[in-house]
């Protein structure tokens, strides 16, 4: 982008030297910047590298693997978690196979990425089971790919896959409900909170957005007030309120006219889910509202002229366009929700970050906050980064911004 006017006869012509000249040393100021950056990078890399490789004690992470990943989940019920893992791997493979084609490069990269994972796991049962789930993923992908290329009725297969995802969600909740939710912890709890939050806040958010754009003043005012209040308050406070007040509000046994009205016992995880959903729904509503404004009004008028009812207009014409237009923003919001699950710390839940703190509170590992927090940060980073990369690919596939 820089207009490089003067290319003297001393400009190198060939390959690397030329690239370096253009990008790093094109002017005095640039050269100074480059030298300064190299010095800064060297310093940082040395400090971080020295810490990670030499002075850090990674034993704390090794020994407490279980706490980080599943909290205090009882051993006897561990099979439930494995069932869920296998189910998700299989479905993920099928989804990838039916919808997209992985470039051949993906497989060696996957293999390479698995090496540190297996090194981390060590040996034993866990490694075998993990290898099994990876194998299932691969098989599912291959099978789905074959069907997509050769089989009939691809759309039927895709619909079945979508329904399976919904079913798997229900199965997961059913399987996990047998274990006391106070024992859920670590990455397992984070993922559950995030998935439930994302899945539940999406329809609520869309409803709120539609309500805010509604022609009924009462509904419009209610939705606007709800959205503005939820967006004006920090999430910690909503979580705090849910923790404190929800049980008081809902657990009383009250009946009106002989019918039970409330009397719901909510455990802490459920309160967290409700709070996260209510909070995120407001943000989703704002995003969807922007999308609704993009749909040209003429489309709605034409649909009305054709005699379509409001539900059909919304479902067939307005929402598909509106939602497709705001997919990047929506995925951004879901990534934020995933990161915000770390705040349930305030309700005493031991999700991933809390696990890191609990680990370093143990007698043997008192001074090791840096290692434990870095490990947790790495896990969060990997997941959030993959999500944002996936969203970019999704944008490309859907042709957002090009139509």
């Amino acid at each position, binding site marked *: 982008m820089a207009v490089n006017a003067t290319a003297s006869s001393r400009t190198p012509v060939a390959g690397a030297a030329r690239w370096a000249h253009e990008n790093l040393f094109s002017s005095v100021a640039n050269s100074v910047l480059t030298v300064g950056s190299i010095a800064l990078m060297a310093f940082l890399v040395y400090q971080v590298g020295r810490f990670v490789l030499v002075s850090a004690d990674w034993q704390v992470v090794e020994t407490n693997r279980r706490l980080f990943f599943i909290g205090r989940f009882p051993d006897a019920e561990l099979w439930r978690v494995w069932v869920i893992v296998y189910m998700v791997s299989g479905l993920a493979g099928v989804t990838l196979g039916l919808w997209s084609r992985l470039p051949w490069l993906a497989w060696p990269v996957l293999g390479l990425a698995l090496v540190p994972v297996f090194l981390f796991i060590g040996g034993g049962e866990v490694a075998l089971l993990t290898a099994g789930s990876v194998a299932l993923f691969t098989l599912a992908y291959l099978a789905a790919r074959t069907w997509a290329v050769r089989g009939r009725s691809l759309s039927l297969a895709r619909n079945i896959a979508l329904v399976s995802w919904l079913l798997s969600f229900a199965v997961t909740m059913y399987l996990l409900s047998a274990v006391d939710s106070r024992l859920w912890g670590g990455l397992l709890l984070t993922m559950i909170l995030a998935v439930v939050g994302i899945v539940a806040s999406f329809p609520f958010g869309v409803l709120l957005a539609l309500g805010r754009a509604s022609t009924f003043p009462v509904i419009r005012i209610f939705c606007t007030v709800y959205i503005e209040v939820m967006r004006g308050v920090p999430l910690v406070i909503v979580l705090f309120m849910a923790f404190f007040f929800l049980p008081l509000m809902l657990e009383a046994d009250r009946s009106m006219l002989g019918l039970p009205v409330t009397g719901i016992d909510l455990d802490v995880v459920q309160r967290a889910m409700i709070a996260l959903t209510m909070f995120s729904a407001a943000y989703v509503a704002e995003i969807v509202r922007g999308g609704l404004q993009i749909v040209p009004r003429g489309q709605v008028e034409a649909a009305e002229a054709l005699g379509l009812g409001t539900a059909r207009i919304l479902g067939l014409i307005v929402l598909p366009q509106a939602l497709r237009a705001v997919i990047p923003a929506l995925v951004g919001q879901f990534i934020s929700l995933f990161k915000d699950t770390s705040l349930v*710390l305030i309700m005493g839940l031991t999700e991933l970050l809390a696990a890191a703190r609990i680990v370093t509170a143990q007698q043997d590992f008192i001074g090791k906050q840096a290692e434990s927090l870095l490990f947790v940060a790495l896990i969060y980073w990997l997941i959030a980064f993959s999500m944002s990369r996936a969203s970019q690919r999704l944008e490309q596939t859907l042709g957002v911004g090009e139509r």
Partner: protein
Amino acid sequence: MTLTARPTRPQLGAIAQLWRNVRVQRAIFQLAFAVFIIWLVYILITNLTDELAKIDLEAFPFVERSGDFPFVKVHLDFLGQRAGFGIKETSFGFDYSANDRYADAYVVGVLNMLRVALIGIVLATVLGLVAGIARLSPNWLVSKIATVYVETFRNVPLLVQLIFWYTAVVLQAPPIGEAIHALGAIMSVKGVALPAANATDGFGLWSVFLAVALVAAIGVWLNRARRQQRTGRASYPWWSAAGTFVVIAAGGFILAGTPLAIDRPQVEGTSYAGGVQISPEFAAVLIALVVYTGTFIAEIVRGSILAIPKGQTEAAAAVGLNPIQRLRFVILPQALRIIMPPLTNQYLNLTKNSSLAVFVAYPDLFQVSRVTVNQTGQAVPIVILLLLTYLTMSLLTSLIMNVINSRLKVPSS
């Protein structure tokens, strides 16, 4: 030809007419919705009141029935009670001790939050601007470093970063016995103490000089800027104004008898005495907020600069502006318009995220409120107060930014 009478429709009964009237339908629907919501709220509130009554607490102790209009009296007496808990640090020189009231504690919380938010906003904007522009730099190394910064700190939750900065960095500073002394400042695990300037006699006189200097500088700037516009000759309005200000202020400083005393901090026992003290909690919260929000601001800046048509950059280059001048005079002014709305969003986010300070025991608004709730048990009024405070701040910020936004808008013809 006779006109055949048009068949008459059977007249609808009165109720059926009402029933089929669209406006009536809409009104009934909204009425039903409102009734449902009110009923729901009623159930929840009465449940709350009953449950709290079981443990001997009033849900709404600040509201009382009274005989005359408007039949309720609001009194927040508990706020006038003695607080009984100390707060480690206060902002803007506000004095607070355990003998002050809860209301004072609340004010301290608000001021602490404002302090971290305002400084954080300024620093985050600077960092975000630099990082955003750096990401677009033609220097490959600089742009890659900025990209790594943004991608790394954007994808890790703020709370994780905050706790990391606090426990793994700030608290690892040397203990106060081995504090590092540099340039009059002291750094240790108890925080950083910087030399401060205290006003002594003659400060009043000097402030008069400062005011005069400011007025003179503005006058000089206006004069020079107009001359520059009129004649086209470079008249350096900013440099002249700055020079005028410095000269008059310095002169006044000497004439008023140097009314500033430098207060050097000392280590006394296990804490600092004197100077400006920055607690480790404040430092951790500030660093985490600035680094985290800086990434989002960097993305906003980068997006808005990329949104400026490329032709502007090329035309500016063709006219002979160097890269810095291009940024200053052509790109950034136009980018500012696009940056404003998402930037205000980030400022709001930073202010709301400052509530995470509760996790490192920095006495911001939420932390103080929690302690108050623990001590008084008056959860409902305090939570309502908390909500109102945050909502007011959000609305105020949105209002201010809307005003700025409308000033920056392209005038529509």
